[in-house]
């Protein structure tokens, strides 16, 4: 398979022949230091193909294409990107002898000022920094984007027309922005991508712009992200101020940073200036915003107002991992900060637990998935904080697959049941005709998410959990995360048992489908709705078509196969470990010996769990915890009979044992369902005072400022009306005034000048 791919897409050799193409002429005069610029300009096509997709979608919109053409062109572009990424991955060692390299596209910001002999320079060029971390990220970004675009081509088919083009334009733009974010060779380009994905997220959450909730959610996402982006921007400024460069290669190679790293490895924190330590804290705020960590996670559940493919791609698989990527990419900067990584670990753990508890009590399956995303992102952050970038990156990868799969399954359900997302109103979907692949896909995703033994999610989560006990000081977090893993398993299978198993029952949602952005299609879709579902109240779900099923199948297989990555290159902690090993995330980490190359012997030195090496015992612990969660879900939510493994007692869609169990907890489930009132708290803490203040300032503005301005404006008027009588129109009056003026002047002359002489 690999050889075939290699021979099929031997693009480097193809392009090296065609390197005379002017637009792609290699630029060897790149000014960046560190990583050598490599003449592989075709790498730039990875982000450029999605831009081509944007243009195509725009052109389609201009010509009002009413077919799925833009979707398939998009899929083509994204598949091209993916294949190119794959080519980079396969030929990586050929480019720069396995070292990171920079592909310079064009000068973007290239400034020099100050003393000409030793100028201060600011270089932020449109260059792409390719190391294995980049390749890892781009692989799943472009791969998933391709699959989800294919899925969306069917999912969005009711909006065919301008809105369809708009969707795919934003989709492509998102992939481009994400590529800039991941591949940029400097923090400014990362920031460009960062803001770009934020913009696309905004555009796509607000895709159904006629729906007030969607618009509100879009605004919420945008505004909450602003807070994080401010931190990121300040962090970038501070980086430039302190290190004088924004290019990764130069930054990581700088002696200053190396010195700090050496100091940090010996815990000489006082040798590292506070500004250098502050950079990581600021970048961390940016990461928290984008990756929906406490306390900035509130936008992500609301972001589910967007179309489900968007939720799957942007708000589950890729964009929200940008924060993880940022920390992984800037890991050396975090290593030199005394408090940054512990904060990351704690915040990640708290987020994981909080989101899991909220997810347990939700009824909207998409929201449950959203909270599970937040929760899993918390795991990733905890992993980063606990110095296992490998674990975090592995979890990012596996999570990308199974969470995309879960979302797409939920989307398929939503698509088929007229927007129905309430798990109390759906039951036994697995037994309905045509829903087999969805049910299997969902099962695979749920098993992964709940950390069922030998699934990809199991291995990646274990890596993080084990590290909590390996790295000193984090065992409390480890226990919390293990508990959270149990909760995760419970709420995941709660969805599966209630929606997919049990007696067949379905109440259609109040929408035919997702909302339709373009009202112009309303008549058409209504007609379709009536034809498909009847209008006599009897509801016929329509099972997913080939595109959705294909994507689900591929993703399910991918999710299962991802587990295999753990066993490849076992020496460096799996394939992902090998990928991370050669990147900045691993960059001269002083804790490398303790964490990432963790062997049993060394683990024994650093931490023990039940008297064993955490890496080994964790398999059993988390496997058992996951099973217990699933079992609990089966008892409380599972159907009666063999389908529920003889444990469940649910005979109707809406009634289960949980209803009675929940009463034992009093109001707590209610509170959890209301998301622990965090939104309300934010409203009370931030929004209400702001509202009050803005009203006060409005009044201040109206009465004081406007009063002053109007008063000043009225002054000439008042003065004029006071003086107006003097303009009597009578000639003699003017003459008297003139003579009086002359007299006064003469008296002044007489008294002042005459008196002086």
């Amino acid at each position, binding site marked *: 398979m690999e050889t075939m791919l290699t021979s099929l897409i031997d693009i480097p050799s193809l392009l090296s022949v065609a390197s005379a193409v002017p637009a792609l002429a290699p630029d060897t005069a790149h000014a960046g230091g560190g990583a050598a610029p490599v003449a592989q300009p075709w790498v730039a096509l990875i982000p450029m193909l999605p831009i081509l997709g944007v243009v195509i979608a725009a052109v389609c919109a201009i010509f009002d294409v009413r077919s799925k053409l833009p979707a398939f062109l998009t899929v083509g572009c994204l598949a091209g990107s993916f294949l190119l990424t794959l080519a980079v991955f396969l030929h990586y060692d050929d480019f720069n002898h396995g070292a990171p390299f920079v592909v310079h596209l064009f000068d973007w910001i290239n400034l020099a000022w100050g003393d000409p002999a030793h100028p201060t320079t600011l270089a932020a060029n449109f260059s792409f920094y390719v190391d294995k971390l980049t390749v890892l990220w781009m692989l799943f970004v472009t791969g998933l984007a391709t699959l989800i675009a294919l899925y969306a081509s069917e999912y969005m088919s009711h909006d065919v027309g301008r809105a369809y083009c708009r969707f795919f334009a934003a989709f492509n733009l998102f992939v481009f922005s994400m590529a800039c974010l991941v591949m940029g060779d400097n923090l400014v380009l990362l920031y460009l991508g960062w803001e770009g994905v934020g913009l696309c997220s905004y555009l796509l959450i607000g895709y159904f712009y006629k729906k007030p909730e969607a618009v509100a959610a879009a605004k919420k996402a945008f505004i909450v992200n602003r807070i994080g982006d401010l931190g990121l921007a300040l962090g970038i400024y501070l980086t430039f101020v302190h290190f004088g460069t924004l290019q990764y290669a130069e930054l990581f190679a700088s002696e200053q940073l190396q010195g700090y790293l050496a100091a940090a490895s010996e815990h000489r924190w006082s040798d590292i200036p506070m500004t250098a330590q502050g950079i990581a804290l600021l970048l961390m705020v940016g990461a928290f915003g984008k990756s929906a960590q406490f306390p900035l996670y509130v936008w992500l559940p609301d972001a589910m107002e967007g179309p489900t493919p968007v939720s799957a791609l942007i708000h589950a698989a890729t964009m929200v991992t940008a924060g993880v990527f940022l920390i992984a990419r800037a890991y050396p900067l975090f290593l030199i900060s005394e408090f940054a990584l512990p904060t990351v670990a704690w915040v990640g753990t708290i987020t994981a637990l909080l989101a899991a508890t909220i997810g347990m009590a939700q009824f909207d399956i998409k929201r449950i998935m959203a909270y599970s995303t937040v929760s899993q992102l918390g795991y990733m952050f905890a992993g980063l904080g606990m110095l296992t970038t490998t674990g975090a990156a592995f979890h990012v990868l596996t999570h990308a697959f199974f969470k995309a799969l879960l979302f797409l399954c939920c989307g398929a359900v939503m698509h088929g049941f007229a927007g129905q997302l309430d798990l109390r109103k759906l039951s036994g979907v697995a037994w309905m005709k045509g829903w087999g692949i969805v049910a299997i896909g969902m099962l695979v995703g749920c098993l992964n998410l709940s950390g069922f033994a030998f699934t990809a999610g199991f291995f990646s989560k274990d890596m993080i959990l084990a590290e909590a006990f390996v790295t000193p000081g984090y065992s409390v977090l480890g226990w919390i995360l293990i508990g959270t893993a149990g909760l995760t398993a419970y709420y995941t299978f709660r969805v599966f048992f209630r929606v997919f198993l049990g007696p067949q029952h379905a109440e259609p949602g109040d929408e035919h489908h997702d909302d339709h952005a373009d009202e112009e299609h309303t008549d058409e879709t209504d007609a379709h709705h009536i034809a498909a579902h009847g209008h006599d109240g009897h509801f016929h779900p329509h099972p997913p078509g080939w595109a959705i099923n294909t994507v689900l199948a591929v993703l399910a297989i991918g999710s299962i196969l991802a587990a295999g990555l753990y066993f490849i290159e076992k020496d460096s902690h799996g394939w992902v470990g090998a990928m991370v090993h050669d990147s900045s995330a691993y960059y001269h980490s002083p804790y490398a010996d303790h964490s990432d190359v963790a062997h049993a012997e060394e683990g024994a030195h650093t931490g023990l769990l039940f008297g064993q090496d955490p890496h080994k015992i964790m398999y059993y612990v988390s496997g058992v915890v996951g099973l217990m969660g699933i079992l609990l879900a089966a008892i409380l939510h599972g159907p009666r009979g063999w389908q529920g493994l003889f444990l469940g007692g649910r005979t109707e869609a809406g009634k289960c044992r949980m209803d009675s169990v929940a009463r034992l907890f009093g109001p707590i489930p209610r509170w959890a369902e209301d998301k622990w009132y965090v939104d309300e708290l934010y409203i009370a803490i931030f929004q209400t005072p702001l509202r009050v203040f803005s009203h006060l300032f409005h009044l201040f503005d109206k009465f004081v400022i406007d009063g002053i301005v109007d008063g000043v404006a009225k002054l000439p008027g008042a003065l004029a009306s006071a003086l107006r009588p003097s303009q009597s129109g*009578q000639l*003699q009056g003017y003459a*008297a005034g003139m*003579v*009086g003026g*002359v*007299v006064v002047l*003469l*008296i002044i*002359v*007489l008294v002042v000048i*005459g008196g002086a002489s």
Partner: protein
Amino acid sequence: MDALISPLALYIACALGAVGVALALPTRGVSWRVPGAILAAGAAGLVVLLLSLRAYDNDQLPNVYFYVFAALALGSALRMITHPRPVYSALYFILTIIASSGVYVILAAEFMAFALIIIYAGAILITYLFVIMLATQAPVEGDEELQADYDAQAREPMIAAGVGFVLLAVLTTMMFNGLGSLTPRSDPVAREQLVLESLPIKVDRILDEAGLLEEDERVGRLGGEGVSKAAVNIEHRTIVIENTRTNTTRSLTPEQWPEDLSATNTEMVGSSLLVDHPGAIEIAGVILLMAMLGATVLSRRQVEIDEDAKAHEARRLHGTEAS
């Protein structure tokens, strides 16, 4: 030098003058015209008296006719501004002009004196009288009640007189304070030399009348072709006389200087005007031209004919032509 007269006296006089003028201004009802005029005249007289006393001490009294003309000018000016009838005002103004020209004569400005009478009394004031007669209904003699209100009633006389006389007080104070430091600045001889030089024929005539020229003799001409200046020197009172036949010259001694060989006022003014201010003359000419045009345009009577009348007129004219 101190103020010429006591400031206190000056201010009292100004105040009295103001009251007097204010009283003398036309009002309906009880008229204080005569006492007001007397008061004003007394005030003016007081100032002039004090001035003259001071001047007498320094032997700088003005010509006695000054008093005559000054009294005449001020009296008629007062009457002019107080008389309720415009025609009388204009006529009193003519009297003021004549008195002023008398003052001009005293001040050796004979040309301007006569020019003043000719231009003002002869031209401008006649225009005024025309306009007054054009624009005013002829009042019945002695019937003050029929007088137009705007003529019979002065407007705010006290305030106006107050302002005017404060100005007078300030002006006179400044003048009297500053006159002490004033000295004549000009050299009249240079101007007269210039004038006489440029008038060789006049010099010839005067010399001839004085019997100082023999046959074929004339005053010496200086300068080249086209320029002929008389060879007179006022400073040294010498005249060069040349014989055109023999081409010989001789000089007259200062004792032989004819008594009446001097530039007249008219000649001096003319020289000053044309030599020193040629541009101003041009500007004055343009001003007068513009005034003439403006007056013509403004006073043209606008004939307003509506469309029907125009059409009618056109038809009538056309018909006349056709027939």
